[in-house]
């Protein structure tokens, strides 16, 4: 068989799932910037996580070595992805699980829907999972008459509020306690009308609301943080215990994972289980991590399905510069340090993957022409690279992708980005200051100075960014 017969790398299909926004980044960003409440919520949340994470990262004497090992393991994984997936498949099957392959979102949604129907269920409970949002699984289930119930507190807030997630880790980061109380009072059946906006009271309301669902729902759908090729072990990292409920209580468990989540060996977990919680929630370890290998007689679901999803990942792998976006362990550290994300929030990015990682992952998954403004949704300040626990060089991928954006659209996007910046006095003042510094330093002008240089360089590939923007950010 020839390779062309087997198919070439393919991007994610349009018309299904949530990888493409309905409008370019600068347009959506402009609206977000005018929402003062949103900016306050985001500023508070990202600053809190940043300082928590910095404290627990600082406790680890070998953090640089762990980061380097994380990067090396992921690089090795991508170089051997086909054989590792075959190894994972064999190990899961040997432990009593069933493995399915889904070339894109449409296939994955059909596989999951068929499995739920075959189990005779009309309701599934879900653990927070980026990948099922990516493929639009909830919409697919609903249109098949199956009710998906989100069990993560933030996802529940988003689902009850008929809203969209805005952060990888804290999807309701854009909502404050008063707004969450309103949503619960409006949309949570049987809620106590005297509910206060104390976080503990709101969490207790969610506990009561979901308890019976956990005890009576026969099918659960989860994502996976890691899948070990060597042993067939799946791992889900969480905080609330809703993950444990979904992974333990139902008869049937369906796990959907992007093919890049595989890691070669059991031992490799020792690197990622140290990197992920500290970079992510800023905890030494998250409250609960569940690991399971196939099925265990008498303990947990007796039927286990693993759905391996491509949906554009093969196209990302085909780009030697861009493929490191597949190394992402979804910790969200890059969002929390990003000056652009902090101002615009997640919705402006259109895709379920927001922030710096979204700006490099979404355009590669869909084909860069479908997310042409995202490679410009950055000042190239480099803070994301410094924060990333697996050392993904996001600025270099952004620059690389800008070179692949079709020119007319790119220019339009860049101009809109420049316009939005100039509408915002703080950013504009910074640009002016940077321009002065740039002139003093005798730099040759190439479009606008930092931070605008990154947003306007559409014909020339920009050089690696100078420190100016970050210095400004730190001192502002």
């Amino acid at each position: 068989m020839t390779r062309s017969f087997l198919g070439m790398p393919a991007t994610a299909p349009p018309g299904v799932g949530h990888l493409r926004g309905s409008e370019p980044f600068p347009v959506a960003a402009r609206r977000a910037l005018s929402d003062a409440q949103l900016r306050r919520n985001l500023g508070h949340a990202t600053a809190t996580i940043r300082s928590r994470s910095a404290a627990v990262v600082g406790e680890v004497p070998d953090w640089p070595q762990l980061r380097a090992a994380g990067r090396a393991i992921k690089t090795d994984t991508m170089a051997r992805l086909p054989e590792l997936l075959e190894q994972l498949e064999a190990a899961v099957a040997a432990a009593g699980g069933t493995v399915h392959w889904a070339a894109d979102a449409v296939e994955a949604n059909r596989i999951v829907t068929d499995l739920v129907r075959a189990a005779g269920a009309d309701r599934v409970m879900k653990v927070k999972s980026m990948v099922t949002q990516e493929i639009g699984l909830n919409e697919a289930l609903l249109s098949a008459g199956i009710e998906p119930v989100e069990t993560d507190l933030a996802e529940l807030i988003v689902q009850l509020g008929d809203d969209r997630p805005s952060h990888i880790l804290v999807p309701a980061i854009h909502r404050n306690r008063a707004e969450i109380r309103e949503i619960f009072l409006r949309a949570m059946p049987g809620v106590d009308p005297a509910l206060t906006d104390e976080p503990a009271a709101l969490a207790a309301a969610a506990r009561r609301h979901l308890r019976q669902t956990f005890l009576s729902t026969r099918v659960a759908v989860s994502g996976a943080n890691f899948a070990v090729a060597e042993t067939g072990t799946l791992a889900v990292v969480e905080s609330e215990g809703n993950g444990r409920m979904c992974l333990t209580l139902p008869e049937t468990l369906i796990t959907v994972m992007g093919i890049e989540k595989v890691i070669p060996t059991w031992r490799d977990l020792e690197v990622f289980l140290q990197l992920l919680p500290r970079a992510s929630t800023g905890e030494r370890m998250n409250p609960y991590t569940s690991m399971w290998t196939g099925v265990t007689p008498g303990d947990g679901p007796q039927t286990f399905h693993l759905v391996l999803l491509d949906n554009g990942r093969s196209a990302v792998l085909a780009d030697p510069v861009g493929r490191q976006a597949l190394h992402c362990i979804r910790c969200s550290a890059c969002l929390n340090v990003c000056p652009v994300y902090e101002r615009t929030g997640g919705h402006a990015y259109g895709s379920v993957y927001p922030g710096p990682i979204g700006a490099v992952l979404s355009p590669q998954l869909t084909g860069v022409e479908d997310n042409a403004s995202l490679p410009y949704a950055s000042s190239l300040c480099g803070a994301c690279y410094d924060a990333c626990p697996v050392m993904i060089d996001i600025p270099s991928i952004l620059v690389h992708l800008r070179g692949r954006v079709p020119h007319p659209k790119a220019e339009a996007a860049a101009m809109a980005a420049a316009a939005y910046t100039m509408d915002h006095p703080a950013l504009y003042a910074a640009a002016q200051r940077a321009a002065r510094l740039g002139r003093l330093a005798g730099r040759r002008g190439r479009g606008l100075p930092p931070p605008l240089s990154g947003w306007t360089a559409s014909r020339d590939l920009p050089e690696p960014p100078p420190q100016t923007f970050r210095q400004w950010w730190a001192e502002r």
Partner: protein
Amino acid sequence: MTARELILGRLRAALGGPEPVPVEVARDYRGAGSVAADLDVFVGRLTDYRATVHRCVDADVARTVGGVLGGRQIVVPPGLPGHWLPDSVTVVPDDDLGVERIAAADGVVTGAAVAVAETGTIVLDAGPDQGRRLITLLPDVHVCVLRADQVVATVPDALARVDPHRPLTWISGPSATSDIELSRVEGVHGPRNLHVVLVL
């Protein structure tokens, strides 16, 4: 062509060459066996995450458990050492109990497989003194009895000690959420109270 063939073919095409290039992983971080466990650090980490720690000798475990759960109904895995249980509790042995029965219990007492000092983590592997995953999930109070020699220093130490083919639950403090304005709330769906009895 099946989806499997299609995806594997796409990935091989994406990588371009027939021969994968091996990548060397430098494991110069602190691996298993490189650091000694510090029990005070372990206790400090647990307390930091709002778990309650009791230190006692083996003969006093029952009294300690009684202090937490006396007068209440507790689920017990089949292999739990009997002398850990005080007379003051009503024991509900898990002989394939239904979920409603487990959820109705006040608490659960288990052993553990291993614990990590640096992160304040307890690992359960569903051994006879720990039981099915379910029983440590539904009751609101979990009392976990640990021997001091089960505490290792780091995450790599713990991974080296457990069997991947058993269902594993890594527990670091009580169930918690920070989803509302990043303010940490203990106890959403898992046990809201975690007590660790460290047997010296």
